[in-house]
């Protein structure tokens, strides 16, 4: 344990990491964990969604209102929308960070994805609430 190398944190860093000198942003695990948690939540929720789609095939608006009037349907749909839009924002973020190297374009795209996710997620939730209430 008194080995000198264990006392030098820079030994764990790549040459590039040392050159940039940024250190850890201390937020790497949160993204990874949130992606897995939302994936886990989406397993049962997406099966529920597939069943709902089959039940609502060819439905008119009155049938949609009747369906969302059931509290559990509205709750499960809102839970689905939250997990789905959070999960897809996290996933698209990784895709953009992997392939878009120009910093300005990358930041612009990441912000655009967040804005679109939030707006369409809110549209979906407000619509479910309007049908349910």
């Amino acid at each position: 344990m008194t080995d000198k190398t264990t006392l030098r944190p820079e030994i764990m860093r790549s040459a590039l990491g040392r050159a940039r000198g940024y250190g850890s942003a201390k937020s790497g695990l949160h993204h990874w964990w949130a992606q897995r948690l939302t994936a886990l939540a989406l397993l049962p929720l997406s099966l529920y969604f597939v069943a709902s789609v089959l039940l609502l095939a060819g439905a008119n608006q009155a049938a949609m209102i009747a369906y969302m009037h059931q509290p559990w349907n509205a709750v499960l749909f809102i839970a689905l929308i939250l997990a789905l839009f959070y999960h897809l924002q996290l996933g698209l973020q990784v895709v953009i960070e992997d392939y878009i190297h120009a910093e300005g374009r990358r930041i612009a795209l990441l912000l655009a994805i967040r804005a679109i996710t939030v707006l369409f997620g809110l549209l979906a939730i407000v619509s479910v609430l309007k049908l349910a209430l």
Partner: protein
Amino acid sequence: MTLTVPGSKQVQHFVLKGDLVVVQDVREALMQGRNSDGKMVRRPLSPHLQVYRPQISSALSIFHRFTGIALSAGALLLALWLGAAATSPGAFSLAQALLDSILGKLVLFGFTLALFYHFCNGIRHLLWDAGYGFELPVMHRSGYAVLVATVGLTVLFWGIFLVIG
């Protein structure tokens, strides 16, 4: 001096001044090297996809991304579909008619295929995250199982759809 990367546009990643290499961006420090003729080149990024033999592991991995991106568009469609239902009976019957058209059905078929693939391969990824199934034969078997399950679930879904509708 501007250096050329094979198969891409001219890029100015580093400048030669005599024997001195001036790097424009510190990230480029690890990217410079010489080819077998001794000419300065920008090293290609690994993995070198253009010389890789396609494998089921890498193919299923990139499918997971493709289907994820496609399903993101599907989520926007879901929001618009719910929005139409919340707007008016007319808006919703228009949305339903569009989805019921041949083009609409084709798009929905693609989304079910993508959804069931991402669902099954997602379970595979979660099992890896939990530490299971890393042995190469197991990984290949689970990969083929994902493909079979994807087709099976898609056929089951549209079978039920046809029986109900």
